[in-house]
């Protein structure tokens, strides 16, 4: 089965949603991470935090609900929920840096075998800035990377050592791709779960460092689709 880009993103977001627990405060990055919000199990209270000063992000507004004073960190219009609160950017990052965020999900350009992350710059090519990513990886209790396993040209994004400017050193706990769930451990990258439509050999061929396997091999990838 060949997945298109949307299907790959949905699979990744769906798998990450399995990590959510009732009462979690969660910060989702731009892109695939944002889609995790679509998979929050019914009846579970997960409070989404936005770096620009909001706890309790609601859905996108209907046309008449659009309010230019309510945006998320991706600068998109959003709505508030019952129980939403607003605060300054200094308070927002006190929450983040102070270890109060249970889970953060970020995109990546590269992740290496020690869990170092590069996701904000390509020298001479892309000038964007790190925004809140460096603070999130320094402060959140659980750091998940959500990304496609390899580049469009099928070059590995999971590498032995990041070559792009770092966002954080040894900060990532889990990498979730459309093919696998990989845990960063002191002994290297552990291939914990494998999607039904791939093989260990194929995943390894798109991954630079050697993956280790759990006793009994990887489990089937948990999905909510």
């Amino acid at each position: 089965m060949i997945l298109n880009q949307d299907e790959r993103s949905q699979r990744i977001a769906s798998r990450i949603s399995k990590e959510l627990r009732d009462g979690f405060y969660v910060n989702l990055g731009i892109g695939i991470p944002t889609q995790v919000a679509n998979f929050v199990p019914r009846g579970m209270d997960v409070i989404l935090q936005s770096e620009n000063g909001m706890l309790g992000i609601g859905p996108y507004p209907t046309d008449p609900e659009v309010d230019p004073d309510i945006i998320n960190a991706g600068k998109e219009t959003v709505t508030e929920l019952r129980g939403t609160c607003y605060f300054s950017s200094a308070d927002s990052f006190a929450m983040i840096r102070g270890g109060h965020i249970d889970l953060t999900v970020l995109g990546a350009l590269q992740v290496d075998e020690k869990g170092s992350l590069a996701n904000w710059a390509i020298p001479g090519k892309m000038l964007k800035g790190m925004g809140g990513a460096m603070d999130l990886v320094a402060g959140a209790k659980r750091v998940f990377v959500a990304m496609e396993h390899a580049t469009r040209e099928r070059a590995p994004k999971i590498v032995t050592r990041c070559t792009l400017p770092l966002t954080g050193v040894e900060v990532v706990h889990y990498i979730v791709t459309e093919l696998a769930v990989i845990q960063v451990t002191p002994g290297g990258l552990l291939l914990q779960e494998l999607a039904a439509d791939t093989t260990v050999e194929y995943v390894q061929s798109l991954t630079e460092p050697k993956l280790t396997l759990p006793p009994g091999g990887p489990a089937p990838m948990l999905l909510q689709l």
Partner: protein
Amino acid sequence: MDKLIPSPDAGIEGVKDGATILMGGFGLCGIPESLIAALRRKGSRNLTIVSNNAGVDDFGIGILLQNQQVKKMVSTYVGENKLFERLVFEGALEIELNPQGTFAERLRAGGAGIPAFYTPTGYGTIVAKDKETREFDGRMFVLEHAIRGQFAFIKAWRGDRWGNLVYRKTAANFNPMMATAADFVIAEVEELVKVGELDPNNVHTPGIYVDAIFQGTNYEKRIERRRTRSA
């Protein structure tokens, strides 16, 4: 005591070429629209602007970039602004990028009399280059210095002649810290109310920090990414 001024232009009379100005806002949300427009009219040059983002090509700080008034930006995220990217790659604009939490805390520290602080953010990355580091409880931290400006341009929702300010929803963002961290703080509000009308329990920026205030007109409040769902 009366901090009311007649116009944004009156507020920025003291801005000289080469000034460092803090400007509130996240994206285009909560930016001091009237003060930015006045600064463009005044034409001051070689400015250092401290602001989370750099606006878009034709709105917000973008209109100052267009007019070549900015020498340096201190920001955290400047993506999706083609003019900005071009000016930096041509060498016409200097950029200092900060992690967003470090940026917020540097401003907070600047207003609170704290010259520098240690943060774990950015350790081992290029933002920690040439900075002092120190270990606390087995973890490494980077020493970051406070930021202060000669001026701060603040946008609030409501305010009074004493300079008490209330922000609205996510339009607060960096405005509260910046309002504490400059020598001369000018606030523009959507609605000027009588002293005593703001709920004292819910004043976000106490008037002590604010030097001048005026009510802006014709707020555009442009939306950068209008995203909606069907009803």
